C-alpha cells in the first residue's frame, strides 16, 4: 500500500466509494484499458460494509435473476487470487441453506427447480448428507437443507487487500478519508466533483458509496431508490474447526460461518426501529446467540469476543442497483448491495463493460437502476434479510 499523494485536478473516471464495489470496478476498468482512474472514500480502508460483512459468498438464490448474477460472481471468486496476484483466500467450503419450517422446505424445493434451470450445482441434503456436511447441527430441528458445494467464504481483509494492491499496481489512485462535498454538472451531464475547495474534472462518475448512496445521489440532484440499513454481527472466540460450510438459517434470518482463524462470525436480524448509527445494540446479539445455541449446542459455552454494526444500502426489492442512471448522462450507480461482498467481482466486471462499451450484460440488466419506475422489481424469496419498516 502506498502513502497518500496529492489529489489530481482531473480523472477519466471518478469512483466515489473505495469499498469492494469501487475497487472491483476500478480493477476491471484498468483491465479494459482505462487509465487515470480516481477512487475517493470518505471513510477509512475497510471501515464501511466491505470490512464489516459476514464474508459469505453464495453462488445461487431462489430467483433466476439473482442466481445467474451471483453464480457468475462465485465463479469469478474462484479464480480471483490468480487474476489479482494476491491471495483473496476464497474458500470453496460450500454453503448450506437450512430451513426449519415446512413452508421454508417448500420454498427450498422451488429453489432447487430454479437451480436446475440455471445449471447450478446444488442438492437437497438427505438426513445422512446433512450429518456429513454439518455434524454439529441440531438435526432434529431441520425440515430441509440445500447445499451449494461451489459457494463459500473469503475473508474481507484478504479480498480488500488484494483488490487494493492490484488497483494501485495498475495506477489507480485511491484516497481514503477524502469526502466528496459536491457533484458538478454542465450542459446536462456530469462534469466533475468537489472535495472541499478542490475541483476534480471528469465526464464519468460512479457512485459506489454503500450506505451513503442516497446522500450522494442528492448531491448529483437525481433520485435513487433505497435507504440505509444497519446490520449487526458478532465474533466468538476461536476454536478448532466445528462448522465446515457457510450456513444460512433461513427461518431465523441468521447467517454464520467459522473463519479460517477459528472464530464463528455471523449475525441475525430482529424486528426493530431503524437506527442510523454504527453503534451496536443488544437484541441482535441476543437473537444470534439464541440461534447458535439452539442450532449448534456446542457453541453455547463459547464466549463472544466482539459485536459490531455496519450500514448497507437497501433497495425496495433488496437487489442491487447497477448501471447507468437514466436521468444524468455520465452518472453510473453501484448501490443497493446487501450481498455486495459476494457480488463484487461480477458487478465490477459487468459495470466496467457497460461503462466502457455501453453494452449491458443480460445478467446485469434485471438490476437496472430505474426498474422500480418501470414497475419491474426482482422478486427473490431466498435471502436472509427482511424489511421491518
Amino acid at each position, binding site marked *: 500500500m502506498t502513502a497518500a499523494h496529492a489529489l489530481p485536478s482531473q480523472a477519466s473516471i471518478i469512483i466515489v466509494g473505495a469499498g469492494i464495489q469501487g475497487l472491483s470496478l476500478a480493477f476491471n476498468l484498468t483491465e479494459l484499458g482505462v487509465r487515470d482512474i480516481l477512487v475517493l472514500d470518505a471513510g477509512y480502508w475497510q471501515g464501511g460494509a466491505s470490512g464489516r460483512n459476514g464474508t459469505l459468498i453464495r453462488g445461487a438464490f431462489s430467483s433466476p435473476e439473482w442466481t445467474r448474477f451471483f453464480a457468475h460472481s462465485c465463479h469469478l471468486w474462484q479464480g*480471483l487470487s490468480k487474476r489479482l496476484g494476491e491471495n483473496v*483466500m476464497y474458500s470453496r467450503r460450500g454453503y448450506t441453506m437450512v430451513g426449519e419450517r415446512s413452508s421454508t422446505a417448500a420454498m427450498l424445493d422451488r429453489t432447487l427447480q430454479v437451480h436446475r434451470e440455471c445449471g447450478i450445482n446444488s442438492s437437497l441434503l438427505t438426513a445422512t448428507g446433512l450429518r456429513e456436511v454439518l455434524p454439529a447441527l441440531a438435526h432434529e430441528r431441520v425440515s430441509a437443507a440445500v447445499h451449494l458445494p461451489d459457494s463459500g467464504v473469503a475473508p474481507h481483509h484478504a479480498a480488500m487487500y488484494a483488490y487494493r494492491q492490484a488497483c494501485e499496481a495498475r495506477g489507480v489512485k485511491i484516497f481514503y478519508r477524502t469526502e466528496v462535498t459536491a457533484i458538478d454538472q454542465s450542459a446536462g451531464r456530469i462534469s466533475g466533483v468537489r472535495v472541499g475547495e478542490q475541483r476534480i474534472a471528469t465526464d464519468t462518475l460512479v457512485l459506489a458509496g454503500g450506505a451513503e448512496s442516497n446522500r450522494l445521489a442528492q448531491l448529483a440532484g437525481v433520485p435513487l431508490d433505497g435507504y440505509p440499513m444497519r446490520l449487526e454481527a458478532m465474533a466468538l472466540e476461536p476454536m*478448532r474447526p466445528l462448522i465446515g460450510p457457510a450456513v444460512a438459517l433461513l427461518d431465523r434470518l441468521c447467517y454464520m460461518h467459522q473463519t479460517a482463524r477459528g472464530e464463528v462470525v455471523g449475525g441475525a436480524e*430482529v424486528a426493530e426501529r431503524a437506527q442510523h448509527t454504527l453503534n451496536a*445494540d443488544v437484541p441482535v446479539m441476543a*437473537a444470534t446467540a439464541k440461534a447458535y445455541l439452539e442450532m449448534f449446542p456446542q457453541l*453455547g*459455552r463459547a464466549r*463472544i469476543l466482539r459485536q459490531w454494526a455496519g450500514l448497507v444500502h437497501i433497495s425496495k426489492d433488496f437487489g442491487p442497483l447497477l448501471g447507468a442512471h437514466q436521468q444524468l448522462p455520465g452518472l453510473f450507480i453501484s448501490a443497493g448491495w446487501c450481498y455486495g461482498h459476494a457480488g463484487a467481482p461480477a458487478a465490477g466486471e459487468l459495470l466496467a463493460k457497460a461503462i466502457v462499451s455501453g453494452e449491458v450484460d443480460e445478467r446485469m440488466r434485471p438490476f437496472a437502476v430505474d426498474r422500480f419506475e418501470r414497475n419491474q422489481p426482482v422478486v427473490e424469496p431466498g435471502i436472509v434479510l427482511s424489511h421491518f419498516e
Partner: protein
Amino acid sequence: MIRLAHANPQVLEFFWNGRRVQGRQGESLATALLANGIRTLAWTRKSHRPLGYSGSYVAGVLARVNGVPNVRLDLLPVTAGAKVDMQNCWPTPALDVLRLSRLIPASWIQGGFEHTNLVPSGSALFQRWEALLAFLAGSAKPPERIGQIAVPMARRLSADVLVIGAGPSGCGAANRAAAAGRSVVLVTRGHGVARYAQSFGTPGPQLDERVQLVTGVEVFGAYREGELLLGAPHDATLGAVALEADEIILATGRRACPPVVPGIWLPGVMDARTALLMAHEQAVAPGVRVVVVGTGDEHAVAARLTELGVNVVAVRPVAQLHRVEGRHRVKAARFADRVACDAVVHAGPWLADASLSFQSRADGLLQLREVRDSRLHTVGSAALADEPLPVATASRHAALLCPCFDVSCHEVQALVEQGITDLEVIKRLTSCGMGPCQGQPCWDSLRALVSARSGLALSALPRPTLRPPRRALSVAQAAGLVDCVEPLQ
C-alpha cells in the same frame, strides 16, 4: 518457597495435563499452578511462545477445564479432581509437535496466517492448507457434544444511581447517594468490596446497608447512548444483568499496563494489582526473587509485598526498565544493570479502561468517534489522566506488542515506516488486538509505539473502536437476554 506462610492449609488435588498437582482451598487454578512452579499455562497462537498468569494478557490463563475450552484459570477456584489441560498443543501437551512452529520465520506469518501468498486460493492445495491454518489458529478443541445447554435467564436491575466498581471511590459514591435517600446498585466484578485497597492492608470501607451490592459481575458494555449497560457473571451458568439508572457513576479505577519493552510478555511478569491480590488473598508470591517497577508507587507495593512474605530484590522506576530477559520465563530484569529474578511486578503505568465511557459517547456513520457527552460520570482514579507508556528504543530483541496474536513491534514499525499510522488500518493489517483480550492492553501499547516511532501525538491516534462484550459474555448468557432487552420500536 513461592507459597507464603499464611496459606490455607486445606489441600485440594487436581490434574494439570493429567498430572496430579496440589492446590489450596481458596486459590484460583492459575495461582495454584504458579505455586507448583508451573508458569507456562498457554502458548501464543502462531509462534508458540509461552504465556503465563500476568493479569494483563487474558490469553495466558485460558485452558480447558473439565472438557470446556477457553476457561479463565485466574477466575476459577481450585476444586478437588478438576481436570485442567493446556490448549494449542498437538497431539499432547507433553509431546507437542506444534512447538516446531517457533522455527517458522516471523515474516512468513505476519498479519495473521492468512496474509500469505504461499498457497493462493483457486489452487488444488488451498482447501487443505486452509483446514490446516484453521486447525492451528483455532487453538482450542471445541467442547464435547452434550445436548442442549440450559439458557440462564438474564435479569434487569434498575435504581436511581448505579455505581460500577467497588473500590474506595465507588463505595464512597454509593454511600453518599444512599445517604441522600436514593436507591443505589453497586456492581463489582470482584467477590467483595475494595479488594485492592485491602490487599494493601488498609481496612475496607463500610458500605451503607441500603446499597444493593452485586458482586462477581463484570459490566462490559454500554448501549443506547449509555441508557443501558450490560454485565455478566463469570460463571456462565448464571444469567446476564441489564442495568439502568438515572445516574451512572464509573468508579472502575485504573489498571497497570505493561510497558512496551522486549520480554514483557514472558511468564513471570505480573501487574501489581494481580500480584498483591494473589499474595494477600491466596498467599502465593509471584516468584522467588521479585523485581518491582512502577511509576511512583513501586516502593509502597514492594513494601507491602515484603510484609506479606515476598522476597523483593529490587525496586526501580518503570522508565528505567530496558527489557525483561529470558527465553521461556523471566530470568532477569535489565536496567542499566542486570538484576537476576524470576518475576517482575509492574505498578503502573496506570491507565483507565476507556470502553464504557467510549461506548456511551460514540456515534458515527463512517467511524465511531466520541461525539456526545457521556451519561456516565467518572470518579476516583478512573478520572485521572492516563500515564504515558514507556516505549523501549528499537532493538534487535523481539518485542511482542500483542502476544495473543504474535504481533511484534518490528511488524508495526515497518508499517509506520511506510507511512501507515491509522490504528484502524494497522489493526486490519496485523490483527493486533483481535484476540481474546480485544485490545486490552495491546491497543494502548500500539498507540504508544506508533506515537513514539512516528512522532504523532497520542491525541492524533485514537484507539480502534472498543467493542463489547470482550468475552465477558457466553453465547448461552447472551441468548438469555432475548426476553430481557426489548428491541427498540
